[in-house]
């Protein structure tokens, strides 16, 4: 049998450039997501990202259409179509900004806790994070919305990034696991 090539994140934690805040955040996000999906029997839901993909695709669709139309019917003729495409494109850009600011709000992972009986709606877990530029404080928020009651509760923590990477920039997966599990139980034990 072929050897398993893809190592899990736990076996092979990512190594990043320690001075690149973006890379640190991505690595931590990926690790938190990995913990949520591997330690619990949750199923990842891609709905939020799919929504963003749809909005962007429509926007790019308008610009491609404008490009094609202008090529088929050179400018003075294509004026009306150009006008519509330009306006529609910038509206879509506005929608995209609204979507990322008010709906996604930094959520990088949505995990569903499927109801075993398949009767009640799933519990929804959301993980969101933020790391300010040139800052070392990684803000992590874990929230749970119970499918049955629709009640939401959440727990937040602030992690100092240098505690989660060794001097070579390799992610300390174990430390992330510890934090995520702690945060997860904080949420679960919170009274509504």
């Amino acid at each position, binding site marked *: 049998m072929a050897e398993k090539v893809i190592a899990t*994140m736990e076996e092979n934690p*990512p190594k990043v450039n320690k001075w690149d805040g973006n890379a640190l955040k991505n690595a931590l996000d990926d690790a938190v997501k990995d913990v949520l999906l591997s330690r619990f029997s949750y199923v990842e839901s891609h709905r939020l*990202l799919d929504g963003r993909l749809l909005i*962007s695709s429509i926007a790019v669709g308008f*610009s491609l259409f404008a490009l094609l139309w202008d090529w088929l019917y050179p400018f003075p003729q294509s004026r009306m179509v*150009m006008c519509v495409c330009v306006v529609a*494109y910038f509206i879509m850009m506005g929608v995209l900004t609204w979507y990322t600011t008010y709906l996604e709000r930094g959520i990088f992972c949505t995990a569903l806790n499927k109801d075993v009986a398949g009767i009640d709606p799933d519990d929804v877990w959301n993980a969101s994070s933020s790391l300010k530029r040139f800052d070392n404080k990684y803000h992590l928020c874990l929230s749970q919305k119970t499918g049955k009651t629709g009640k939401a509760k959440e727990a937040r923590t602030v992690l100092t990034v240098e505690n989660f990477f060794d001097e070579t920039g390799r992610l300390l997966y174990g430390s992330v696991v510890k934090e995520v599990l702690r945060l997860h139980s904080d949420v679960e034990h919170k009274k509504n």
Partner: protein
Amino acid sequence: MLQLHFLDDLRRMNIRQLFYQVLNFAMIVSSALMIWKGLMVVTGSESPIVVVLSGSMEPAFHRGDLLFLTNYDHEPIRAGEIVVFKVEGRDIPIVHRVLKVHEKEDGTVKFLTKGDNNNVDDRGLYANGQAWLSRKDVVGRARGFVPYIGIVTIIMNDYPKFKYAVLAGLGVFVLIHRE
């Protein structure tokens, strides 16, 4: 072994994230394109911003000046104005001053142009047998200019390899750089 750690970020992404990465690149290009098309609609000119490529309009415009054009139908062409026009068989539009205008009652015009710094008018530049320009040849009229900025475009056009290298570099950076 070569350690390509900057690709690790990409390697960890799933198919949706990779697709978004491509879309993100497409949106950057699209935004530039749509601003350009928007300017076309607003100014009525098929090329609202042009770069002066020659010294034929000195001392008004120098090589590398950026010109902003409009091309509204209701504005008549008058002698003394600076117009940008296309000539059949030439890829690059020309920026010159209107020297003579003949206008008919129905509004059709034919006109002759000349570069301020040239000794002769433009008849030699026009297509074979063409003595006058008409409305349809006009790309726009100069409305404003920014000096020197366009020199970047000139350098890019003079050294196409440099241009493609810069564009490819930027493209790759956007594609592999995770937001």
